[in-house]
């Protein structure tokens, strides 16, 4: 009891201090020299900060200075839209009492100009890609948006290949991503809220949602959680995910991510909120349901019956991926009766040569498979393909011949490995669950497997993603969970996501073939 208290006190004494705020100067002075001097001291004259002094106005009576970060701005744009208009007014510009306002309204031709009065805003705008215009004896400055840094073009996403459907994927730039979504949903009620997170990185994070459809308390929870993040830098939406998700300890991801705008747009239409993080092509949508990871974008573009089949194949693949090895072990070690006699004899023959117990064999093979998979990803693209193929073939074959591993084990592990690729979103949860159920099955056979299954089910039931029950897809009626009903009759949004379950448009469309026949019957035209 006492050691506990002592530990508590020690922790309180040397708790790490929060990040210190650097900028100590607050308001701009109206003397240009001081301003420039302060800016230089703040930036510590790092190489890419450019300060351009120039004079303008009638017989160069006024003095100004431009401050911008080289590389973040478009130099041609600066000269064309700031310097040349100022120089045009050379002969007509006399002394004006309010010079800054006149420049902002009349002279500058930039689309976006802001007046700033404190150093903090000036600095943060300058680092964001704007140029700052200081004028002598004026205590406010102008921040002009002249962004123009290198951007990656919109290309096909790597992680979600699709046979049919739009191929454009997100890029690292937040503005292109929001524009891609805006192009998908052109309704005025699409709101984009901007947040700046990270003491040092100051990354822009945009919340995108449809005003009349979003679930208000999910929005409230999300906003409060975003505000509470005190962290140095956010480079990837995965990092953000870690901070705002409900239960970071559960193997299940309660926040969905995607690289394709049409998937995020569909989610937003269903009442979810998309979070775009500057600098990463992965956009996360909140709240997530368990069944979402079994839906792929292509389900809605392909034939309806085919999607029935594919959905069932995905669920079966998930079950095989998680319970495959455990079921094999419980069959071979505990309930040999279940295996038909001839198959049992072949398994015994195959295992005659090997010496390890089955659990060790399965762990060896699972471990080998994980190594190959990681190698396949980490190596550069051409090498990666070769390694995974070579690894699979040689290792499997050699292991069996060397008598290290029985042939059936290789087959079982291969099937579970391939099955876990079918559901990309869940590829992080499957290995964890597989090991958990495997251990239970080795020690108690099918009974252990059932206990493992129940444990997973109970955990899933008590999991919520932003207040919305995570596993609700199966238990309550949902037109899109196990099977996808025809698009025309998919009228209701998933429970709990939308504000008050607003019915989607176009719910009154019947099958055209039926409608046309009815029309003809009424008219009495015999085909």
């Amino acid at each position, binding site marked *: 009891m006492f050691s506990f208290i002592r530990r508590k006190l020690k922790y309180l004494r040397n708790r790490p201090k929060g990040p210190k705020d650097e900028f100590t100067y607050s308001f701009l002075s109206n003397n240009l020299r001081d301003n420039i001097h302060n800016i230089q001291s703040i930036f510590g004259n790092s190489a890419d900060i450019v300060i351009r002094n120039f004079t303008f106005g009638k017989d160069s009576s006024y003095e100004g200075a431009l401050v911008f970060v080289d590389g973040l701005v478009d130099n041609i744009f600066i000269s064309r839209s700031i310097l040349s208009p100022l120089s045009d007014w050379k002969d007509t510009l006399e002394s004006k009492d309010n010079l800054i306002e006149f420049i902002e309204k009349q002279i500058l031709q930039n689309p976006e100009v802001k007046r700033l009065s404190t150093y903090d805003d000036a600095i943060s705008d300058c680092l964001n890609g704007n140029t700052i215009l200081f004028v002598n004896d004026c205590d406010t400055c102008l921040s002009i948006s002249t962004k123009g840094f290198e951007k990656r073009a919109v290309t096909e996403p790597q992680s979600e290949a699709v046979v049919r459907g739009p191929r454009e994927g997100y890029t690292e730039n937040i503005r292109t991503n929001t524009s891609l979504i805006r192009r998908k949903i052109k309704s005025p009620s699409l709101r984009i809220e901007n947040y700046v997170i990270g003491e040092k990185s100051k990354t822009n994070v945009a919340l995108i949602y449809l005003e009349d459809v979003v679930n208000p308390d999910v929005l409230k929870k999300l906003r409060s959680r975003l505000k509470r993040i005190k962290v140095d830098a956010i480079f990837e939406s995965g990092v953000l995910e870690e901070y705002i998700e409900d239960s970071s300890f559960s193997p299940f991801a309660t926040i969905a991510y995607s690289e394709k705008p049409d998937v995020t747009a569909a989610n937003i239409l269903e009442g979810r909120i998309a979070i775009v993080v500057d600098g990463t092509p992965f956009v996360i949508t909140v709240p997530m349901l368990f069944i979402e990871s079994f839906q792929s974008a292509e389900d809605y573009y392909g034939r309806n019956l085919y999607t029935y089949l594919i959905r069932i194949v995905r669920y079966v693949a998930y079950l095989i991926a998680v319970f495959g090895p455990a079921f094999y072990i419980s069959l071979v070690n505990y309930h040999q009766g*279940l295996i038909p006699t*001839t198959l049992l004899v072949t398994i015994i023959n195959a295992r005659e040569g090997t010496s390890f117990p089955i659990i060790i064999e399965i762990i060896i093979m699972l471990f080998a498979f994980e190594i190959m998979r990681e190698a396949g990803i980490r190596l550069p693209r051409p090498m990666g393909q070769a390694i995974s193929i070579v690894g699979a073939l040689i290792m499997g074959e050699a292991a069996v011949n060397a008598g290290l591993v029985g042939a059936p084990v290789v087959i079982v592990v291969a099937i579970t490995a391939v099955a876990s690729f079918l559901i990309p979103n869940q590829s992080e949860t499957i290995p964890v669950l597989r090991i958990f159920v495997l251990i239970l099955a080795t020690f108690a056979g099918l*009974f252990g497997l*059932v*206990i493992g*299954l129940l444990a997973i*089910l*109970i955990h899933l039931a008590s999991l919520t993603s932003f207040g919305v029950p995570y596993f609700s897809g199966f238990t309550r009626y949902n037109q899109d969970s196990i099977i996808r009903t025809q698009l025309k009759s998919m009228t209701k949004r998933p429970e709990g996501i939308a504000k008050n379950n607003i019915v989607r448009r176009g719910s009154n469309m019947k099958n055209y073939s039926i409608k046309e026949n009815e029309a003809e019957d009424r008219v009495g035209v015999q085909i």
Partner: protein
Amino acid sequence: MTIAETKISGRQFMYSIICFIQASAILNAFISNITYQESWLVVIFAFIIFIPSVFMYGALINRFKDKNLIQIVIQIFGPILGRIISVIYLIFFLSITMFNITDLTDITKTSMLPTTPYIILVMMCILITAWAVRSGLRVLTIYSKMYVFLASFIIILSIIFLFNVIEIGNLFPIFSLPLKKYVQGIHILNAIPFGELVVFLLIAPNVQMNKKQTYKYFFLGASIGAFSFFLTVLRDISVLGETFGMFVFPSLVAFRLIRITEAITRIEILFIVILIILLIFKISILYYVTVITVSQIFNLKKYKNIVLSVGFFLMTAAIVLSANSIQHTLAAQNGAPFIWVTLQIIFPFILLLISLIFNIKSPKEESK
């Protein structure tokens, strides 16, 4: 987790009743060696006799809308006497849970893990149910719909698979046994599967359903459960015929006779696994109810922290109190009906009568 605030829908209430009775369908060993081939008749009569008490339960739930059984007892009999009666109910719930735990471990021992010691199986079952009970009623009953479909799928599938072995002749002769045997059979059935529905009186306050729906859901649940119980007994008798009375778990033997092609034989374990899931569901509900009664008696706010200690008691008691399956079935056949039926049906009926005579109702503003 306070007791009152988790609300489940009426439909889930019905599904959990069905699941509850289906789970005890595999334990029809109780009546098999009393009314050999006519057990399917006894099931019908038992259900017919049980129907009035279903409506009696419904009436009790409706009269005391937001009060579970223990609160009603305390309200009617006053704090001291009420507590004594609820302690009796607590012992009753403890012994029902122990009964089902021994049944579960017997089934797993005979069909799957013959040599694992008793305590391991009991402990695994207790741990899982404790986790489910700790995470609240909603998590407990959220899967009842899935379990019901699973169970009925199993019953229908097994009938189809056993079609070539079924002999209709085995169902006869009818009414060939002395009347005493029938009465005892009905008495047992009203105690083991049907009487245990008294447990739902404690879950009812957490269910959102109006007056009419209570009757509808309770009756529908009980009748579908009874029908699947009837189907199981019918299947077992028509397959096993004379040997129906011989076995401890007739359904286990019936599943063993499934032989389709050369490969699909000896698959009784797959069926038993699903029935074990159902039994674990039933034990988790009984466990939840026991913990609720304990917290009601000592009126604790949160019941989460006493779950594991009750589990510990259950675990060790389940091992010590039942010697072997024969003594267990004998106790169920002769001892249980008398004791349990009084607590399950006669006592709530007395509660209802007293509350009608003295017109005690839960206070006006509460009963919506």
